[in-house]
């Protein structure tokens, strides 16, 4: 049976760079769509991730990060590689933060290997357009993320 993989875009596209995950998801769908992958726009949903992740062997969450990198820099990591600085660093969903979501998935025995493609953001104020640095890098970031998705398909 082939590996079940989800690529999930997170973020609020009404809050500028916060929507980068959703923007990249759209870009992947339009330019790099691969068969055998579920591309899901989760927007600002949070808790629903818990039971959705149970459907997959691996999931890549695409999201904005604030980690002191250069604006537009991409970092792909598994969750064991990071610690969350703020308790509330989170997908919205009533303050059930991403850290809790991952703890829930672990405690529930959900086996999906979870990766995050994090993109350093600049401005998460209200608005619909990405900051220039992100917009300029969008194609390159999308390409790099798609390359990583390719490695997920071949890895065991």
């Amino acid at each position, binding site marked *: 049976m082939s590996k079940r993989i989800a690529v999930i875009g997170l973020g609020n596209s009404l809050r500028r760079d916060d929507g980068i995950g959703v923007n990249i998801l759209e870009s992947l769908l339009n330019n790099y769509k691969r068969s055998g992958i579920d591309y899901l726009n989760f927007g600002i949903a949070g808790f629903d991730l818990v039971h959705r992740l149970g459907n997959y062997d691996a999931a890549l969450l695409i999201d904005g990060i604030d980690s002191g990198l250069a604006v537009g820099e991409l970092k792909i990591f598994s969750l064991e590689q990071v610690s969350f600085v703020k308790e509330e*660093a989170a997908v919205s969903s009533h303050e059930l933060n991403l850290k809790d979501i991952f703890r829930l998935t672990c405690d529930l025995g959900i086996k999906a290997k979870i990766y995050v493609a994090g993109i350093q953001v600049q401005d998460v104020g209200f608005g619909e357009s990405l900051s220039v640095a992100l917009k300029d890098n969008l194609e390159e970031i999308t390409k790099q993320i798609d390359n990583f998705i390719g490695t997920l398909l071949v890895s065991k």
Partner: protein
Amino acid sequence: MTKSLSKIDPQNVKVDVHYLTRVEGHGNIVVDVKEGKLAKCEFQVIESPRFFESMLVGRSIWEAQHLTSRICGICACGHSLASIKAGEDALGIKPSDEVAMLRKLLLYTEMLDSHILHIYILVAPDLLGVKSVVPLIKTHRPVIDMALRMKRMSDYAGEILAGRHIHPISYVIGGLTQLPSREGLEKLYSLMLESRKDGEETVKIVRTLKFPEFQRPTQYMSLTSDEEYAMYDGDLTVNGKRSKVSDYRQLFMESVVDYSRAKISRINGKSYAVGALSRFNNNFEKLHKKAKAAAKELGLKAPCHNPYLNTAAQLVEWVHCLEESIAILEKVLKDGLKEEKVVVSSWPKRSEIGKIKYKANTGIGCVEVPRGSLFHEYTIDDSAHITAANCVIPTNQNMGNLEDDMRKIVPELLGKKTQEEITLSLEMLARAYDPCISCATHLLDIKFV
């Protein structure tokens, strides 16, 4: 949980909950009792969602739904439907009965989704004496599995009915962009039938939980209708007195306070409540008989003046919405959906937007969302572009009522409870309203190790 601690000096108490947890967005609770007098009692909202209104100005009315469905991850369908109704009111469009029925179904499934999240994930930890849902996985695994099963059902509903499980795309002004698939509707029907036993089990569980005792009668506002338990349509009612939705600006007044970014709403100069408990109090007789039976089992009677029991009212509404959804699905599966009655055919082409002339007008849409009555009002010019927008969200409406509850409960607790117990009581009170403070940004602030 903090019984070993000594009681506090009731003359001087400070409560400062900086960032209340298990609510959407950021809010603080600040209480200060000096020499026995309540000097300060505030629920401070420190972020504002109202920028969305300015984002709507200048946009075509045909785009409004897609923008507003992204205001909230929890009430995305409610914002969408209030927006659509406001747009239709402004444009003079009347949707078919079939479309109205499908909209009610969508609204019911959002209630199912949000209410079960609130009951099990946000409130149950308080009543079971733990910090969050995470420890409950070890101690109450079958219950958590059931809660997730109930969430999955309503999650699937959004996907089938609205094109995706969050931020609906297929419900638009005039109708739907596509028919939901029969296969999907059949599966949803089957999942809902299976959910009945989970609902019954949840009533049994919630019946055993002890909610704090507190009473404060207030003004309860909701939609009401002679036909049904109103959620999608109706008049506004406040303790039996009806008004037209179009008169909402005359009914309640919003004002600004210096410590909070949320406006405080008042009716006749007094705070009021919206949400499940208000709907339950105003419209009890219209509930489905199974929901009435659930209320009886829970010991919940209308009128109920204990805001902590908003959670119990949510469970009663869960039962109601499940039964109403099942009834709609039975009708749809029996009669089928006629494409010409449901799918929109009169939308302007993209190239025509801005060129077709319309009557400059104002439209208002109101629906009940999980936390209460939600209003969208748009003024459009003759090219159907929005020139003014006003969105009144339930959480803002509840803020004044929550503060009045706090003002009554704090003196009642002084001398009887520890500082920690008073703090927890106030946190639980705020969470009972299920506040949805903002559409939070969800940026990850992380450190690589």
